[in-house]
């Protein structure tokens, strides 16, 4: 799953989940599922950022 969604979509979905929790729109019954999904998305985003960071670090060093 994690490879089919890009960072921006993942972040957006994550924001929507946080907002819906904030707005109290959620049923307690689906809360666990939502938080689970959110934690997956956070992991995905972190991985992406780390990867991007490494790639860019190399590019920027070569440039200097």
């Amino acid at each position: 799953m994690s490879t089919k969604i890009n960072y921006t979509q993942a972040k957006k979905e994550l924001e929507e989940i946080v907002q819906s929790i904030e707005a109290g729109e959620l049923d307690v019954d689906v809360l666990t599922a939502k938080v689970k999904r959110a934690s997956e998305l956070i992991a995905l985003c972190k991985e992406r950022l780390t990867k991007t960071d490494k790639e860019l670090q190399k590019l920027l060093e070569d440039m200097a």
Partner: protein
Amino acid sequence: MESSFSLSELNRQVRGAIRDSLPGAYWLRAETSDVRGNQSGHCYLEFVEKDAHTQSIIARARGIIWANVYRMLAPFFEKETGQAFASGLNVLVRVTVDFHELYGFSLTVVDIDPTFTLGEIARNRQRVLKQLEEDGVLSLNKELVMEAPANRIAVISSPTAAGYEDFKDQLDNNPGGFRFYTKLFPAVMQGDRSEESIIAALEKVYQYKELFSAVAIIRGGGASSDLSCFDSYHLASNVAQFPLPVVSGIGHERDITVLDIVAHTRGKTPTAVAEIFIALVTKTATELIELQERLVEETEAFLLKEQSDLLTLSNALVHRSSLFLQREFSTVQELTVNVRHLFRQALQKEMIGLQQITVNLKHSLRQVLKEETTALQQHHISLQHSLREGLRDELHFIKNVEQFVQMVSPENVLRRGYTLSIKNGKVITSSKDVQKGDTIVTRFKDGSVDSIVTGTSSKEIV
């Protein structure tokens, strides 16, 4: 026949007349023409005056500057005006008017006022500038944007000029180690031909304009500096309308020529022009470095922001979910309290309702019993009353009857003095029942008397 003069005699007369009538020195305004020096250091020239409109010569006079004067005057003039003393200049000179029997009329220059010429040059420049402005071209070249990097330069210069070499050296040895591409377009930079020569060079540059980022018109320093061609309308008009930015460097410290004014940028000397290009390229390089730095910074900032966004979101998730649950917990708690409270209230209300019913019941019962008791008492009272009334009525009736009977009882009537008249055993109640001679019995309470009727009368007594 009048006496005649020999030429020498006449010329002598003229010389005397001129000397007598124009004895001093005079300031003269005129244009120089055909200025030439000779080996002995004297300067020969002609002064002319042109019609302001037609430009045709309306006056002419020979002039001479003796070497001893010219040696002082020429450098002074050049120093003051930035202009060699040459043909085609409007000058204000102090002259003596001379006439020589052999050489004829001439004006000998003894002094010169360079400021007049300066004014003339300035006026001329103003005219040219005004014309360019009217043409709408004055600032065209200035408005051009110099393509970056400004390192491809078409150079218009005299190939032999020292200034050109200085220019190239300066560029080649630039401290940033930037690469410059120059191409010389040779031109005569001095004298009468310079104007057309420079224009021709510009035309040649024009053919390759895509290859260049700018044109440099430079002229090596040199002692003699004839700047008049750089004030020319034609050259200025060409430069102003040229599609590449023109940088001028015609090597004069003090004067700004028309060319300098219309050029994109002005450098004082060829070296200065080179510095201008070096500075431009350096600036371009600096911008590039800055851009690179920004790229690095922004990329790092971007990543940092994303990381912090992610952290914020992650924290929000934790915070919000626990808040959410807390809120739900307290909602359920509140509902529990409400249920308990409301339930107790409902029971209490029922209890009070029951109590009220009990009270009502007691009250109603007391009321019912009281009413019954009252009704009984009322009956009792009514009974007593009715009985008393009834008995009294009966007694009253009986007493009335008794009175009546006593009143009509004959015994009682006789006792009160009334008598009864009786005929044949019947009570007589009318005088008509008795006739004369009838015997009647009169009864008293204590006996009776028999009488005979002697007469009757029917007169009513009562």
